[in-house]
């Protein structure tokens, strides 16, 4: 049985095609203005890779920030439920999911079936999100994908006090002016985000294992900082970015199963 999950995020669109509980293939593309068309393209790309056709898909479930703008999806489910499903599938020991996405971050408590028990999300600003890191990377002249690697070189602790994207950017600029090393500033930024996420996570009763999802989980510096702050067992899936889409596909599979 062939199903698809689509995660329409604020920075990227993800598609996962699932056949009989196995990931057949997935695609990640950047988001643009025409969400509907781009999402369709993303799915078509994946289908091309798997050699399947759109009409073969039994059910399509969309999730993410743009989930309601996808008319060809059979259902929309929030990314919170999807991340919980996806993380549980990848690692059944998962009891907490921390998803750091492009526009928001969330902490989700999950039971052993992958059901959401409780969740919290960040305030509406970009602090502690992928977008925040992107802006800082730009200010420092570092490529987004190198952020983690660079920050791990740090030998000195710098405290970043602002968490507002605009203020933090000016703080970073003045630190550069003071001659601080890039890697130290980066480490400071990662620690600041980790603290912020940590205090958010503490609102829930944190339980092991913690699975990190979302694009930011690819950032090794961020993972290190979070491990330190949370003092917990942290699991990073090989493709943390597609966990939401995977969860959507799993939901689709469940729906399709019920229909048979």
């Amino acid at each position, binding site marked *: 049985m062939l199903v698809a999950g689509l995660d329409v995020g604020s920075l990227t669109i993800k598609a996962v095609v699932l056949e009989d509980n196995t990931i057949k293939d997935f695609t990640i593309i950047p988001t643009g203005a025409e969400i509907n068309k781009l999402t369709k393209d993303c799915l078509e790309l994946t289908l091309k890779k798997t050699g399947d056709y759109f009409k073969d898909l039994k059910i399509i479930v969309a999730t993410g920030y743009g989930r309601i703008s996808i008319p060809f999806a059979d259902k929309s489910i929030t990314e919170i439920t999807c991340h919980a499903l996806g993380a549980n599938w990848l690692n059944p020991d998962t009891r907490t999911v921390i998803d750091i996405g492009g526009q928001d971050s969330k902490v989700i408590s999950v039971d052993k079936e992958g059901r959401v028990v409780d969740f919290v999300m960040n305030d509406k600003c970009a602090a502690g999100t992928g977008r925040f890191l992107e802006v800082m990377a730009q200010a420092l002249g570092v490529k987004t994908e190198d952020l983690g690697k660079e920050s791990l070189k740090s030998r000195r602790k710098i*405290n970043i*006090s602002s968490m507002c994207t605009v*203020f933090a950017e*000016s*703080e970073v600029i003045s630190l550069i002016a003071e001659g601080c090393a890039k890697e130290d500033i980066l480490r400071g930024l990662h620690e600041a985000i980790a*603290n*912020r996420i940590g*205090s*958010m996570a*503490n609102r829930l009763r944190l339980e092991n294992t913690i699975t990190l999802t979302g694009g930011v989980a690819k950032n090794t510096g961020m993972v290190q900082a979070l491990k330190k702050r949370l003092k917990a067992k942290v699991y990073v899936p090989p493709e943390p970015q597609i966990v939401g889409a995977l969860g959507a596909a799993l939901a689709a599979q469940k729906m399709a199963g019920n229909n048979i």
Partner: protein
Amino acid sequence: MKKIMKREWLDFIKQQEGIIALAAHKKPKKPIMSWVCTYTPLEIIIAAGFYPYRLLPAHIDPSLANSYLDSNFCPYVRSCLGEGLTKKSAYLDNLIIGNSCDAMRRLYDAWRHYVPGSFIYLLDLPRNNSPKALEYYQYNLQRLIEELESRFAIKISEDLLYQAILVSNKTRKLLTELSHLYAKERISISATEFLQIIQEGMISPPEEYNIFLGKFLDDLKKEENILLTDSQIKDRPKVLISGTVMDNLEIARVIEDCGGKVVFVDMCTGERYFSEPITLGETKRSRSDLLRLIAEYYLNKVPCPRMVNLEKRWTYLLKVIKDYEVKGVIFYNLKFCDTSMFELPVIRERLQKSGIPTLCLEGEFASAISGGLKTRIQAFMEVLEFV
């Protein structure tokens, strides 16, 4: 040479901090009762045999408490709860909270739920100084005494209360004198040092502090300690700082670095902490007489914006401005302080109409002061130079 003398005393302050720090996690001579609001009657704490200690956790990041109180909450209160959660120091065992505002009320709730095992009491406070409010507050003081007596198996006699008022009175007398010397005379203590001396008083054993401050003032009054020349003072625009809790003495330093002279600090860690001493009179008084006097003192002292009496605050600010020839007012309020934020538009407009320029700053508590803040202070000082 002269400078060294002053330094010696300032070193003593640091040592003093040592005393209380010792008290905090080793064995203090007396148990410690913490407080958070200047409407808490320190006399009663002293009479009950405690060292009063104001929670001022400027080293605790408010976000530590974000799992228990919303992030749009008074950062001072969040830092206090954050420190409470650590349970590290002896002064966190006992706490009296004044019901001064929503933030304090919720601190009381959160402390009871998340810092279990400690003694905590909420003292209800009226919002004005009408005769009825006075009567109500006096009744609450009575209740506080009863609570302390039953909880700690002590007796707070008239005599103990009387002695405690004498101790607090002495502190008030000395601090009032310091405040006059500081603002009017040409002694060379900086605004930072001035505030530090006041704040030390809030966290030190009161009698020891009185001895120290008495000696310090005697020395200051000696001719050789008057250091500033007339022109040094005249050229500096005089500034009044008005606000909530001063978490960062750096701000006062930045103002002075930019050429200003801070003459008065209308904050609860500044000159709102003390007023003129209580008049006791000669004859011996009953416990309720003494409580009456204490109640009158606290409700009539320089009001915090939490009190609902804008005219009283305005009159007092105006008097300070006239007496000390204040050129400009800097408001420094911690974020999310509703009572201050509501008062600001009215007071600010009146000041503008009286030709007094104002600068409004916001603080996050326990954070470094930013470049932006420095620039604004500097620009404001440039404005004042032309007024």
